[in-house]
């Protein structure tokens, strides 16, 4: 192994998420509920990047129709999503801010109905795409 490098093997089918802001990969792990999936995940933190200085990379081995990646647009739409099939990049997905996100973030307004109705989905709607503002569908509280 060359000094200061780390090799992670190819994946057959799945996703390579590149240009993740350094340190954010564990958030993505959580948001994509990867802890609940029985698949192979490699997380590379603080990899060297000519563009970003430092970045995180994730490799997720799973069927490509298995995962909803829209949420990545909410976390950071600068992430590059490479879609892998037969160990080759077959597509690069452009990320957009999703119009609606369900059960990813929770409304923190103590006066919101979601604070007492346990079964209720926590739904946030993109109300201002320019400033990337999401509001709770029920109480309109801004997500910070």
């Amino acid at each position, binding site marked *: 192994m060359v000094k200061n490098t780390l090799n992670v093997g190819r994946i057959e089918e799945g996703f390579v998420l590149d240009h993740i802001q350094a340190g954010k990969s564990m958030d993505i792990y959580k948001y994509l509920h990867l802890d609940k999936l029985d698949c192979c995940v490699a997380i590379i933190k603080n990899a060297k990047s000519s563009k970003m200085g430092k970045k995180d990379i994730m490799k997720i081995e799973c069927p490509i129709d298995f995962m909803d990646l829209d949420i990545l647009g909410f976390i950071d739409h600068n992430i590059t999503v490479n879609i892998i099939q037969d160990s080759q990049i077959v597509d690069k997905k452009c990320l957009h801010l999703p119009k609606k996100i369900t059960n990813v973030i929770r409304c923190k*307004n103590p*006066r919101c*109905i979601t604070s007492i109705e346990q079964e209720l989905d926590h739904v946030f709607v993109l109300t201002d795409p320019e400033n990337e503002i999401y509001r709770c569908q029920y109480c309109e*509280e*801004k997500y910070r």
Partner: protein
Amino acid sequence: MRHLMSPLDFSVEELDRLMDLAGDIEAHPDKYAHACDGKKLATLFYEPSTRTRLSHEAAMLNLGGSIMGFSSADSSSASKGESVSDTIRTISCYADICAMRHPKEGAPMVACRHSSIPVINAGDGGHQHPTQTLTDLLTIRSLKGRLDHMTIGLCGDLKFGRTVHSLIHALVRYEGIRFVLISPEELRLPSYIREDVLDQKGVPYEEVVRLEDALPNLDLLYMTRVQKERFFNEEDYVRMKDFYILDAKKMALAPEDMYVLHPLPRVNEISVEVDDDPRAAYFKQMQYGVYIRMALILTLLEIEV
């Protein structure tokens, strides 16, 4: 099927039609006395209210319909832990239309998603209170003859005062509206209204602390109560509650055609000596509240007379 969640659920044209209908009801009440024969209104009030609940009930009774419901969470299955969505599914089997007040913001929206009858949001926490807004709009239109080109002072608790939030949403759709926001620092209008509604639509406004400074330039003054139930802390409430008191001396600073509105109940923010002033319109407002709710019930039930 339509619900009423926010004053923006109706277009300006639909609002005009609704207010025209309310005007016709006021002029010819007998014509509408049996319009809702056999129909039932359920009032689901999870927190106390006098005016809003009774005015909905009066509206349905005036239309010949009947009423049912509860007036506090303690006297409903909510006290046993029943969810809003389960309650509304049940009520949908009993009534033709319902009005819901709930201390939690967004509760009526949850209800309308599971309801098979029209749901009227009768106030959800500090969020929206659309039927009050419809009342306010009808009152303003009836007294001033228009809803555009006005300077409107909003005074008191602008932070938690849902009537104010709903009224702003509704009035920014009319041309030439300008707001003077009169409140203590701690009770200023929330950013989601200031930035996303007023700033985004380019509606002029100024924020002032002293009521006296604003009065001479207003076409309309909308007073609100500092609501004890919105404070988590008794100390903060006590500090804020006497911040504004409108009395005869202050009214002397106001133009002769500046009407005073208040969603009521008042505590002491309008002195009783103002009640005899011809510009005090808050009791007329209550009567308009019944007419507009009658018009709303007819519209949501799609009953034509």
